[in-house]
């Protein structure tokens, strides 16, 4: 092992020698390098912070520490105003020491690359609308890791701007505000690249995870629950992947806007129930894939507005109010091999035509037959009921839901379609549901 300082020193010497034209003395410089390499490496120092140690505050260590050092923080409560980290250090809490913002200020600001923060309890960053107070704020940094921390009652939890290749792992965030306007986001990213957000639990923030102008990032195995607005909210974030996350009981579910090349798979969208709640709201999304997700008991499972070339396949839609709400400005979307089970409405649309295709889906309300035994029904299924068209145009008509009159209308329309889009049909509906 070679200390980083050693390498840097070698480099500067070598550089200087070359610059000064000592071409012939390269061998000499090599010798010098070898000399440096052979020096026994000085290990990065580690400091211990605690009430019984020489260093009582983290701030005092930060001034003493060098790049690459490790700072171990013992259990206790630390109220040190905003900690600004300008050195590449590892700060590790032992037994979850508390860093408190005393409901006034931001707790930690990271301005250096390669910082690691682990094992702290961040508490009570104050609400501030001008500075967007966060428990941990990272600004223009690379390769930082924030892991295994607990965040409680903060305005923003982890706030990253202009960061790249950072990892946010295994954190737990919770907030207790009841008003959307007085609440910040759990994990907030703005203009970031190559981030990995994995296995975090976020509860009670405004948006669980918030992305704006983020590229090439991965969001995996997070649980975003009971947030005031969206479980996950992203805009202008191309080429990101969202997998194996749970979005449960959020005020308005998940919203995704103005983005290309999104991959959403194996997520669960559950119990996002309410007048303005969507399991997944898609606005201006194109060339994306949504597959193998579970949509359970959302008042609207997926809402498509202005979406093009989105492939939705192998998802389960069960017991939702409306499984798919497809606005007329969405084109060339494919819905294939999904299960639609006991939704009040399978598909609703405000259009009389359809430029999207439905194929090989299983519909629990399909009443057709399969004479040639190929597993697919012989007569096409029309997922759009007349009543859902009426509702799309005229919301108050919903009070007639489950009326006998409406059932009769639906049956009549089903036999002689006149108002429902004639081309919106599943030509080969599956007879049994996909497992």
């Amino acid at each position, binding site marked *: 092992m070679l200390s980083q300082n050693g390498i840097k020193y070698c480099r500067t010497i070598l550089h200087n020698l070359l610059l000064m034209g000592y071409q012939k003395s390269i061998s000499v410089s090599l010798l010098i390098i070898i000399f440096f390499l052979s020096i026994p490496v000085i290990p990065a120092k580690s400091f211990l912070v605690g009430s019984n140690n020489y260093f009582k505050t983290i701030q005092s260590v930060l001034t003493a520490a060098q790049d690459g050092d490790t700072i171990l923080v013992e259990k206790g409560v630390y109220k040190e105003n905003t900690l600004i980290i300008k050195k590449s250090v590892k700060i590790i809490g032992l037994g979850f020491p508390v860093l408190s913002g005393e409901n006034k200020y931001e707790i930690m600001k990271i301005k250096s690359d390669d910082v690691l923060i682990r094992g702290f309890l961040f508490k009570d960053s104050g609400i501030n609308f001008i500075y967007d107070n966060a428990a941990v704020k990272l600004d223009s940094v690379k390769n930082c890791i924030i892991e295994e921390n607990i965040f409680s009652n903060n305005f923003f939890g982890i706030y990253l701007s202009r960061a790249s290749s950072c990892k946010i792992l295994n954190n737990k965030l919770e907030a207790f505000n009841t008003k959307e306007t007085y609440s910040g986001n759990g994990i907030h990213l703005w203009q970031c690249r190559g981030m990995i957000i994995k296995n975090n639990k976020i509860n009670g923030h405004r948006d669980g995870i918030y992305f704006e102008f983020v590229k090439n990032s991965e969001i995996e195995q997070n649980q975003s629950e009971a947030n005031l607005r969206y479980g996950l909210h992203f805009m202008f974030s191309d080429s990101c992947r969202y997998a194996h996350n749970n979005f449960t009981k959020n005020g308005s579910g998940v919203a995704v806007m103005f983005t290309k090349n999104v991959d959403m798979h194996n997520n669960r969208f559950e119990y996002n129930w309410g007048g303005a*709640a969507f399991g997944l709201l898609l606005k201006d999304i194109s060339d994306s894939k949504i597959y193998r997700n579970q949509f359970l008991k959302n*008042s609207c499972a997926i809402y498509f507005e202005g979406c093009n070339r989105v492939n939705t396949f192998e998802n389960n839609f069960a*017991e939702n109010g409306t499984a798919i709400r497809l606005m007329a400005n969405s084109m060339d979307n494919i819905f294939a091999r999904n299960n639609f089970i006991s939704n*009040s409405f399978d598909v609703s649309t405000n259009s009389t035509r359809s430029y999207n295709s439905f194929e090989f889906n299983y519909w629990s309300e399909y009443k057709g037959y399969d004479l040639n035994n190929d597993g697919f029904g012989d007569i096409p299924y029309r997922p759009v009921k007349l009543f859902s068209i009426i509702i799309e145009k005229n*919301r108050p*008509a*919903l*009070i007639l839901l489950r009326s006998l*009159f*409406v059932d009769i209308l639906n049956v009549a329309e089903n036999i002689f379609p006149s108002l429902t889009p004639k081309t919106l049909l599943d030509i080969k509906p599956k007879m049994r549901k996909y497992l």
Partner: protein
Amino acid sequence: MKILFKIILYQIHDISRSRWILFYTVFYLILTYGLIQFSNDQSKIILSLLNVALMIIPLVSIIFGTVYLYNNKDYIILILSQPIKRNILYLGLYLGLVIPLVLSFFIGTLIPLVFLSRDILFQIPLLFLFITGLFQTSIFVSVSFLIATWNDNKILGLGLSIFAWLLFSVLYDGLLLLMINVFQNYPLEKALIGFSILNPVDLARILVTLKLDVAALMGYTGAVFQKFFNTNLGTGISIFSLTAWTIIPLIIGKAKFSRKDF
């Protein structure tokens, strides 16, 4: 009072021997059993039961009531030759029909639920379903009695009964939908609350739908409805409306019956 009870008891005894009421009970038994077997979602079971209840109960009650009064004409004439007040006889006949019909609905739905899906029993929507069943039966029997006392012509009476059922369950909603469409540029929520209170079938349907939190699906309209029907005033007005629908036809029918020349 004693005579009233006697008449009621006799009627119940008489009706419970008829095959109709047995079919009616067995129908609910099979329906509920089937629903439990095919669906795991409890609120869906209640919803389906409600759907059927809102269609079948009015139909059965109104037709059964009309036919019942026509068929018992000889019996009525016989009783009227005794010193019995006509009011009491009418009430006796009415309760003697309503009680068995309600009981067979309760028994038919409760037995499968008790044996197969016990945890559903303690849910509030189920209570609403039963209250709905009770009111639908009493309202439509009372309407049918009115129709039958008004007309001596059996065919006309039966036709009117079926038309009344159609009006309440189908045509009214059609007219409502038409109205919603014509006036779609106006805020209709409050007017709709008024119109839905006027029709007992719609009122019952909306009350249970709101209780089963499908309300969220309805967005703003649902919220307005929920807000109204969840207040004491809303509940009071809906119960008042249902009671009025039971009592007013009953009183008119009774008055007609008292002055009728058999």
